[in-house]
């Protein structure tokens, strides 16, 4: 049990530190790399929670595909840094205060709810969270949402192509 605690708290430290690093790093490339680290630690959390399929999907989809897309766009635009000017001066302190208030509320709710939920049973079904179980669920009970997802992805593909094409032709006409 103690090894679980050590594992959880060290991973939680890495996750929070990398998230804060993303928040405060000036360069967008560094922010993206911190976020990759954060996604990787969350994938390890998924492994700890008996979700190996989701963990692999997290690494390949989030840390792989999505973040590579981000890095490509950052480097393509050369938009590592935007100007330091802040249009609204009081925005930063107000954001910090609101964040602290939200954290305090969440902490209060969590502390007041401690002990309401019974403890977790340590024994668990052998096949829980295995790729086979996920696949069976996905293709029987959740077949319709799965198919709707394909329409969503198609719309996203068409939408992004139209957006980028439209910009280019418009720019040429402008010149």
């Amino acid at each position: 049990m103690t090894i679980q605690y050590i594992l959880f708290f060290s991973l939680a430290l890495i996750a929070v530190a990398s998230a804060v690093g993303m928040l405060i790093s000036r360069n967008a490339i560094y922010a993206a790399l911190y976020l990759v680290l954060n996604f990787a630690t969350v994938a390890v959390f998924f492994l700890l929670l008996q979700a190996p399929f989701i963990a692999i999907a997290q690494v390949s989809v989030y840390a792989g595909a999505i973040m590579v897309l981000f890095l490509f766009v950052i480097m393509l635009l050369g938009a590592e840094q935007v100007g330091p000017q802040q249009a609204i001066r009081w925005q930063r302190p107000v954001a910090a205060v609101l964040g602290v208030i939200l954290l305090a509320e969440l902490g209060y709710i969590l502390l007041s709810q401690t002990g309401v939920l019974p403890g977790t049973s340590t024994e668990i079904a052998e096949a829980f969270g295995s790729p086979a179980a996920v696949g069976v669920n996905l293709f029987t009970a959740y077949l319709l949402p799965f198919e709707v997802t394909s329409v969503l992805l198609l719309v996203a593909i068409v939408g992004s192509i139209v957006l980028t094409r439209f910009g280019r032709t418009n720019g040429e006409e402008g010149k």
Partner: protein
Amino acid sequence: MLPVYYYVALSAILFIIGTLGVLIRRNAIVVFMSVELMLNAANLVFVAFARYYQAMEGQIFVFFVMTVAAAEVAVGLALIVAIFRTKQSINVDQINTLKG
């Protein structure tokens, strides 16, 4: 498994860092990455409660959230590229008019 509260608390902290990123940062791409961080924090709670209740539905839902996030990133980054072409900037303070 550790008490589920630990995971909920960690997820809340990550979510709030994402919220602060959306509120504070000026770079539109970093704002977008903060949104991804918030989605990821929600996924962590989904998986934690799926383990707690030993129900597969939470993991299935995380799968769908990931798909929606991927679609959202594709469209959002295309939008950012299009805005950069017209405005030559992705500072969200300068993108205050819808008409370029």
